């Protein structure tokens, strides 16, 4: 500043002397170092998408050939990671089928076996825990969810003065989670199951916030599943292993129900409280229940979500 302006100096206001250049670059260098240091956690990321996965098409735009390639890629990835060759399929909805779940609140004893059968069947993370089913314990004589408790741990169930209400994805007819998804990574299929394409999900968690049932779960970390507990019978929209940063939820065991089998939570229930079937078939168990049982509720029906999951009582 004290120096007299020279002949070839820059115009006033943009002058850059040797000194100020050095000072500014020193600050810039430390700033860049700080930025680089703050990005250090990225170095720990090891699940970079392969080019194949990065360029993968949207589920509904894939041709059968594309899908076959994708299924092969998933099988390879799972085998590489778990040392076990899975059988991954892409199962389409069956014609003339709409699934409905009925749960008998009179019979449920709150043993949580359904929770763990679901975890085992659907390859959910064990640590940290991801569980699709949450069993609520409610005091007798009310259906006030505010009084519900899900950490209960008595020596034996059922406890006197309480009843139990397992809550999972209600497979709504009018699902708020689907409406908020900015990338259409989740949608309702013709058989009523709301599915997620884990390869299309960007992990914004809008759907988690929109769901009135707290049915959606987010993979904050890479899911951990012990090799010996991996279920190798997988489907693309169902129980194939998820990545860090994607949503997941109950899909009525798509890999079982779309080949005609019952969901895992139903088969393990010791009290026979869970009933599942095709509501379009008048001879199914669920049709019988909705026709002849006198009391059944749709959880939070005032939300207008119209769940396909019904709670009923033996009268």
């Amino acid at each position: 500043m004290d120096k007299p302006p020279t002949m070839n100096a820059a115009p006033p206001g943009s002058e850059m002397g040797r000194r100020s250049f050095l000072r500014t670059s020193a600050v810039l260098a430390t700033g860049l170092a700080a930025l680089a240091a703050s990005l250090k956690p990225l170095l720990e990321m090891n699940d970079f998408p392969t080019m194949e996965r990065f360029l993968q098409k949207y589920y509904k735009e894939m041709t059968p050939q594309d899908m076959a390639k994708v299924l092969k890629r998933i099988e390879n990835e799972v085998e590489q990671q778990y040392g076990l060759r899975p059988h991954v399929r892409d199962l389409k909805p069956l014609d003339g089928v709409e699934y409905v779940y009925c749960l008998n609140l009179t019979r449920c004893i709150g043993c949580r076996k359904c929770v763990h059968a679901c975890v085992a069947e659907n390859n959910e993370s064990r640590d940290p825990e991801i569980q699709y089913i949450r069993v609520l314990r409610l005091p007798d004589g009310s259906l006030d969810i505010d009084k519900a408790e899900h950490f209960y741990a008595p020596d034996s169930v059922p406890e006197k003065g309480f009843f139990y209400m397992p809550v999972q994805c209600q497979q709504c007819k009018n699902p708020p989670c689907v409406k908020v998804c900015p990338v259409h990574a989740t949608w309702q299929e013709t058989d009523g199951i709301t599915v997620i394409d884990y390869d299309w999900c960007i992990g914004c968690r809008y759907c988690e916030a929109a769901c009135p049932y707290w049915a959606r779960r987010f993979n904050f970390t890479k899911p951990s599943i012990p090799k010996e507990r991996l279920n190798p019978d997988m489907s693309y929209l169902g129980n194939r292993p998820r990545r860090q940063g994607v949503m997941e939820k109950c899909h009525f065991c798509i890999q079982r129900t779309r080949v005609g089998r019952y969901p895992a939570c139903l088969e393990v229930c010791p009290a026979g409280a869970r009933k599942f079937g095709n509501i379009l078939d008048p001879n199914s168990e669920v049709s019988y229940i909705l026709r002849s049982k006198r009391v059944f509720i749709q959880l939070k029906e005032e939300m207008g979500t119209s769940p396909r999951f019904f709670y009923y009582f033996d009268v």
Partner: protein
Amino acid sequence: MTANAKTGSVLAVLCAAFSALTLGFLSDSGGTRPARPAIPLVDTNFLDRATTRKSYADLVRAGDDLSDFDCYACHDKKKPPPLRLDTNGNIIVAKEHPDIVMGHGQHGRNNNCFNCHNETNLVLLQPRDGRELKFEDSPKLCGSCHGPTYRDWEAGAHGRTSGYWDRSKGPIERKACVNCHNPHSPRFPSRKPAPGPHPLREIGVAAGPQTGQE
């Protein structure tokens, strides 16, 4: 202070701040989370799909020991076993049947062996309408009193099922009444619940009230 000196001091402060940030990021101070206890794997017993009891038909199918159902190994074919009641009118179960605990019906109303067993032929069951049923057909006996439950069971709305909901793809497996209910004491037994959810944060700090032993 001249403008140049002012710029210099601002740059020096920036430099110091950036250096501090660099050190902070590299040492990961403030980024360390409190250690969370590892979550143990769930006991595989909780994944078991077996029913609480085995029905006579199951035992026959599995080729298991049926000596419990061979009544005339001990009883006399010509002499029906006598009924003995205590002073309160409760039945006294012979000590040869240690596994039978009578508890059928509130207030012990169903309190007579021969309400269900055939008195003259012990290997048969006999509902009040006079039919004679084999042990395999026990649901019909239960249904002779528990009509609405039997109706629900026949429709598939009561009791355990497994297999295929789509009958065109495979068979459905139904369980009998006695697979879950002990006929002599039919109340569904209580059991230890599987472990509940583990909070992501330290237990005690977790959101939601804690009860029980967790």
